[in-house]
């Protein structure tokens, strides 16, 4: 029974404490409000730009999504993986956190590619071009999909966690390449609006504030998604452990019902040997 009792504690622990659930809910509401405000400001309040016209409105959605994909998601995944691999901090918590961050990051990377393509078509005249920034981002997308596929390979939790952590760290090598690709090579993609070598902001006024709000909104959305995704990961692990426990318990109870293999047969039924017969 003690193992079952420990299961109860683990399940509720995986579901998260009440304060954590309240925090998650608060972050979710804040993310929703910030996103709605960004959309209203971005689509109807901010002025069009001199060169790009209304296309500049994609500035409030594409860079924030890319920021979450590159730095928040994969940065968190790399940090979690490192902390898992480091013996002092090794815990399945970091493995689950890394897995959650990667899944959310893949969604945001996909959106970065799609929104970038929708911006590229009217400004560059093409949906896609194999320049450094775009190609390295597409490679990043594929690398982290590979990470997710690797987690599906059957293995024990420890083996899966270790190999996933190594894969996440290897894939993270591509992040600085994506980030600096516009500085290292000549590409169609413009240089960073915020994260450029001189850290000089290229937008001002209401456009700058709206873009900043967009960054805050997408970061909050990311935080909420990672918290919920982490809970799913933890609950999934606990439930599959419990399933295994119950299966084993059932086999034990079946073993108690089946008489010993070597017992003599009387009238077609095995007769259990008397207790204390040496077995």
């Amino acid at each position: 029974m003690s193992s079952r009792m420990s299961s109860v504690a683990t399940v509720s622990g995986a579901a998260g404490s009440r304060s954590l659930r309240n925090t998650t809910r608060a972050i979710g509401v804040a993310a929703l409000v910030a996103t709605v405000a960004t959309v209203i400001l971005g689509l109807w309040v901010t002025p069009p730009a001199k060169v790009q016209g209304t296309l500049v409105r994609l500035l409030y959605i594409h860079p924030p999504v890319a920021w979450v994909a590159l730095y928040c998601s994969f940065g968190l995944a790399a940090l979690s993986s490192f902390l898992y691999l480091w013996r002092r901090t090794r815990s399945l918590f970091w493995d689950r956190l890394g897995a959650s961050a990667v899944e959310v990051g893949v969604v945001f990377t996909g959106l970065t590619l799609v929104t970038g393509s929708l911006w590229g078509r009217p400004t560059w005249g093409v949906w896609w071009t194999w320049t450094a920034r775009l190609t390295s981002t597409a490679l990043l997308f594929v690398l982290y999909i590979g990470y997710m596929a690797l987690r599906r390979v059957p293995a024990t939790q420890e083996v899966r966690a270790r190999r996933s952590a190594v894969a996440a760290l290897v894939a993270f090598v591509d992040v600085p390449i994506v980030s600096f690709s516009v500085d290292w090579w000549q590409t169609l993609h413009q240089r960073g609006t915020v994260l450029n070598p001189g850290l000089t902001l290229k937008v001002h006024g209401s456009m700058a504030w709206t873009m900043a709000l967009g960054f805050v909104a997408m970061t909050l959305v990311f935080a909420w998604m990672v918290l919920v995704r982490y809970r799913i990961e933890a609950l999934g692990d606990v439930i599959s452990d419990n399933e295994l426990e119950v299966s084993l318990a059932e086999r034990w109870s079946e073993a108690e019902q089946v008489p010993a293999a070597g017992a003599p047969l009387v009238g077609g039924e095995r007769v259990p040997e008397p207790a204390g017969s040496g077995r």
Partner: protein
Amino acid sequence: MSYVDAGYAVALGALGLYAFSLVLRNRRLQAAARAWQGDVGAGDAGVVAPDGACLDGDARPHDSESAVRSGAAALSSVPVLQSRGPTPARKPFDASDAERTDLPSAPGAVSPGER
């Protein structure tokens, strides 16, 4: 529809869909977890989750078969667990299994050396 509208629609639509899928998966897994907890909690009075969270309102009989059935029913609708492949059908217990695997010997089972 302009490129700007399309960009916002795709980004917000995809994020909304993904968020919805997360909420759905979370709820299904919590339901599955409650199915397990409901079984244990009914039989083991006084077992309280460390965070004091309300686990499940309806009492269920303390019966491992019902737990397996309710748990399995809840789990069968969870995509994250479905992806791990179907649960193989249980075969009747064979005492010699305990000898072939590294499972500890079942009570009353005969170890190879004792035969």
